[in-house]
C-alpha cells in the first residue's frame, strides 16, 4: 500500500513542481535583468490557458502529429518518475537504469522530431534537424558520464548509485567533477537552455526547439511545454541524485524521513533554479555550429572522467 502511495507522491510531485521550477528560473532571470517579471505561478496559468484553447491543425497533419504530445509527455513523466527525487528504491525505479533512461528520453525526442517534420514546413525541418544534431552529440556525452559513475559503482541503476554514494565516502574525485561538468553541459543542451538554445526567442532562424513545435497549438502545445518543464526538473533531480544524494529517504517506514527527503528535494530544486538563472543571464546564446565544439568538449570530459577513474582505481 505504502509503496504505491509513494509512487503516486513521486508522480504528482513532478507535475506539481515542474512549472514552479520554470517559473522560478524566469522570475529570477527577470530580477537579474532588473525587471519585475511574471509571478512564480505564471507557467501554471499559461498551461491551463493553453489546455482550454482549441487545437488548430494543419490540413496534412497526420495521426502522428496528434499522438506525439501525449506520448512525449507520458514518456518524460515516466522517465522523471524513475529518477529518485526524495527517496530511493521506489517500485518503478527498477524499470530502467540510467542508460535506459537516456534512451527513453531519446524515444520522446524521436517522436517530437518526427512531429516537427510532419506538417512539411521548412521551420519544422530546421528544428528537428538541429534538435537531433544536438542530441546526437549530447547522448554520448551523457553515456560517458554514466560510465564514469558506473565504473565507480559497478552498476548503472540509479538507486544503487545513489545509495552507494550515500554509503561510501568516495571523496572528491577529479573524475566525478569532470563528470558533473559534462552532465551539466548535457543538461543545458537537452533542455534547450541558453547558450544552446533560447526558450524565449522569437527570431525563427535562431530557434531550435521552438521551431520544431512551431505548428503546435492548444492542448498539444501545453503538453509539450509541460513535458519540457518536467524534463528540466528531471535533469535537476538526476544531478541531485547522482552527485548530491543527501537526504534521500531509504526506508519508507517513518514518514519523517520521507518528509525530510521531500523538503531537501525542494531546496535542491530551488538552488538549481537559482544557478540556472544566474548562468543564463551571464552568458549569450551560441551559434548553432559552435555547439558541436561545446558538446564534443562534454564528450571528451566524460571520456577523460572515465580514464581518470581507471587511473585513480589502479593507483
Amino acid at each position, binding site marked *: 500500500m505504502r509503496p504505491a502511495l509513494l509512487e503516486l507522491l513521486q508522480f504528482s510531485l513532478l507535475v506539481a513542481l515542474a512549472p514552479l521550477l520554470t517559473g522560478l528560473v524566469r522570475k529570477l532571470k527577470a530580477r537579474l535583468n532588473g525587471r519585475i517579471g511574471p509571478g512564480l505561478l505564471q507557467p501554471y496559468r499559461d498551461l491551463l490557458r493553453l489546455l482550454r484553447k*482549441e*487545437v*488548430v491543425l*494543419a*490540413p496534412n497533419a*497526420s495521426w*502522428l502529429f496528434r499522438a506525439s504530445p501525449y*506520448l512525449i*509527455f*507520458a*514518456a518524460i513523466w*515516466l522517465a522523471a518518475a524513475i529518477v529518485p527525487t526524495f527517496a530511493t528504491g521506489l517500485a*518503478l525505479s*527498477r*524499470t*530502467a*537504469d540510467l542508460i*535506459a533512461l537516456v*534512451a*527513453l528520453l*531519446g*524515444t520522446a525526442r*524521436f517522436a517530437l*522530431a*518526427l512531429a516537427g*517534420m*510532419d506538417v*512539411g*514546413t*521548412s*521551420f519544422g*525541418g530546421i528544428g*528537428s*534537424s538541429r534538435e*537531433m*544534431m544536438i*542530441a*546526437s*552529440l549530447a*547522448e*554520448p556525452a551523457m553515456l*560517458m558520464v*554514466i*560510465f564514469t559513475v558506473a565504473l565507480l559503482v*559497478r*552498476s*548503472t*541503476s540509479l538507486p544503487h548509485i545513489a545509495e552507494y554514494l550515500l554509503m561510501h565516502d568516495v571523496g572528491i574525485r577529479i573524475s566525478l567533477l569532470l563528470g558533473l561538468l559534462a552532465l551539466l553541459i548535457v543538461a543545458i543542451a537537452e533542455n534547450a537552455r541558453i547558450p544552446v538554445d533560447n526558450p524565449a526567442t522569437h527570431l525563427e532562424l535562431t530557434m531550435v526547439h521552438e521551431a520544431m513545435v*512551431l505548428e503546435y*497549438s*492548444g*492542448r498539444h502545445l501545453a*503538453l509539450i511545454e509541460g513535458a519540457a518543464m518536467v524534463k528540466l526538473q528531471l535533469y535537476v533531480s538526476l544531478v541531485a541524485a547522482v552527485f548530491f544524494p543527501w537526504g534521500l529517504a531509504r526506508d519508507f517506514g517513518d514518514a519523517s524521513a520521507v518528509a525530510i527527503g521531500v523538503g531537501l528535494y525542494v531546496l535542491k530544486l530551488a538552488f538549481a533554479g537559482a544557478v540556472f538563472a544566474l548562468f543564463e543571464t551571464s552568458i549569450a546564446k551560441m551559434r548553432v*555550429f559552435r555547439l*558541436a565544439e561545446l558538446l564534443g568538449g562534454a*564528450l571528451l570530459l566524460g*571520456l577523460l572522467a572515465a*580514464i581518470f*577513474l*581507471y587511473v585513480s582505481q589502479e593507483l
Partner: protein
Amino acid sequence: MLSLIAAPLALYGAASLLGIAGGRRALAPVYLLSGLAAAATAFGAARFLANGAMPETAVLPLGLPWIGAHFRIDALSAFFLLVLGLTGTLTSFFALDYGRHDDEPGRVLPFYPAFLAGMSLVLIADDAFSFLVSWESMSLASWLLVLATYRLAETRSAAFLYLVMASIGVGALLLGFGLLAGGGGDFAFATLRGSALDPWKSGLFFALAVIGAGSKAGVVPLHVWLPPAHAAAPSHVSALMSGVMTKVALYGLIRLLFDLAGPAQWWWGAVLLLAGGLTALLGVLYAVMQHDLKRLLAYHTVENIGIIVIGLGLALAFRANRIDALAALALAAALLHVFNHALFKSLLFLGSGAVLVATHERDMEHLGGLIHRMPVTAFVFLIGSVAISALPPFNGFVSEWLTFQAIVNGSLLPQWLLKFAVPAVGAMLALAAALAAVCFVKVFGTVFLGRPRRPPAAAAREVGPTMLVPMAAFAALCALVGILPQTVLGLLLPVSAMLLPDSPGIDLSNWLWLAPLGPDHSSYSGGVILLAVTFLAALLVLVIHRFASDRLRRSPAWDCGFPDARPETQYTAGSFAQPIRRIFGSVVFAARERIDLPAPGDMRAARLEASLHDPVWEGIYAPTARLVSLLADRLNLLQFQTIRRYLSLMFAALVLLLLIVAVSQ
C-alpha cells in the same frame, strides 16, 4: 540424421529446379516452397534449441573423398538457422506478391531458393571444404540475384565488386583453414579443433578469419561491396542479404574464433572491438549522407554489424581473461542483436520494397507524405525505425543495452589497452546509436511525413495484404522481443553453454525485469515502460479531453506566417543531414560545400554544391585498381613482340636455368 534440415534442403532444390523450368509461371510455387522450407527450418531449429540442443552429426560420401562431407547441427548453428528460417519464411511470403514486380522474375526464381539453401548449408557444414563450398555457393547465388537487374550499368559494377570481394574473403578463409590443417589432408572441424597452433600462427589465423568473415559481413574497411550490392538486388533479396547473409558471415566468425581457434589471445578482443566501433560509426555516418533509401538501409547494416562485432570483441576479451560470466553477457548481447537486426532490417527493406512498388522511387528527395497514402506501411516502417534507432520499448534497444552493460564492466579487464579501448568504443557505440536516430528521423520524416515532393509519391497506393502481413509480422516480433527479450535470450543459453562451458550464462530468473547479472545489478523492462507510457498517455487523453478541451480546427499551416509554401520548400533529406555533414562529414569525408548566391536582382537560381569523398575507397581500393591496371598495361607489351624476341626470352630462360643448375652443383 539432421532430419531438421534435410527436408528443407530438398524443398529448396525442388523450388530451384521449378524456377529454372517454369520461369515466370513458377513464381508462386517457388516462393511457397521456399517459404515452407524456411518455416520448417525455423520450427525445427527452435524445437532443437528448446530441447537442450544435443549436437547431431552426419557424414556423406561427398566432397573430399578421404574425409567425406561432414555436417553437424549444434546450438550455435541452430540459433542461426532459426534466424534464417524466420526471416526466410516472411520474406518468401512477401515475395509472393512483390516478386511479380521484378522486371524479369525468371532471373530471380532459380537462385532465390539456392541462396537460402547455400546459407543453410554454411550453417551446418562441419568440415572446411563443405563449409567453403557452401559459403561461396551462397555468394554465387546472391551474385546472380544481384544481377537480376543486370540492365543497369551500376548493377553490373556492383555485382563485379561483390563477387571479387567475396572471393577475397573465401581466399582468406581458405588460407586460414590451411593453417589449421597444417598441410595435412584432414579438414574435418573435429580435427581442426584439436590443432594447437603456436601463438604467432594462431594470430595469423585470427587475422585471416577476420578478413575472410569480415569481408562478407561488411566490416570496415571491407564493406565497400555491401551497399551497392544490397541496393541493387530485388528488395526481398536485399532483406535476406542484409538480414541473414551478413549474419551467416558472423556465424562463420564465431565458429572460427570461439570454436575452432582454440584459446583466445586478449588482443583479438581489442582488434575486434576497435574494428567494430569503427564499423558502427563509419557505417552510420555513410548512412546519414545517403539519400538513396536502399543504400541508406544497407549502410545501416554495416553499422549494426559493427555493433555485433563490438559484442563479439568484448566476449573474446572477457573469455581470454577467464571472466566467463561477462563473456556470456557480451556474447548474448551480440547474438540477440543478430536476431534483432535480422528482424528490423528485413522489415525496413521490405518496407522500402513496398515504397518502391508504390512509387518506383528510391530517391528520398522525391518522396514524402506517404503516411497518408500508405498508412499501414508507414506504421510498420515507423516501428522498424524506432527499433533500429535503439529506442525503447523495441528490440533494438535491448541488445544495445546488454552490450552497454558489458561495456560498463569493461574495467574488470586487466590489460590497459582494453581498459582504454572499452570506454572509447562505448562512446563510439553511443554516438552511432544517436546518429542512427538522426538518420531515421530523416528517413521517416522525408519519405512518409510532410507533403509529396513528386507526382509519383502523390499517386502512391497502399500495397496489398500479401506484402503487408509479413511486414506486420516482423513489426510484431520487434515489439515482442523488445518487451519480453527473455524469450529469445532463453534460446541462447545453450549457445553460451557450448561456447563458454564454464560460464553460468546470464540470469533470466525474472520474467518481467531483465537483470542479466542478477537482481542487485542494473535492470530494464521494456514491458513495464510500454505499459506505463500507454497508461499515462491514455490517462492524459481522458483527463484533458474530459476536463479541458477536445475541440479541433483544420486550417493552413502557420509556418511563421509564410503563405502556403510549395512542397519543394520542405526540408529535404539533404538539408536535414546538413548539420551532421558539417560536423562529422568535414572530418571523415572531407565534405565541402560551395554556395553560389546570385547578387540581388540577378534572376539566376542560387546553388549549393556539396562534395563528399569516401576515404576507404580512395585510400585502399582505387589505388589497388590502379596498380592492377598499371601492371596489366606493362605486361601486355609482351603480347606484341617479334618471334626473335620470344626466342630470346626462351634462350634467356634456358641459360638462366642452366646457370642455376651449374651453381647448385
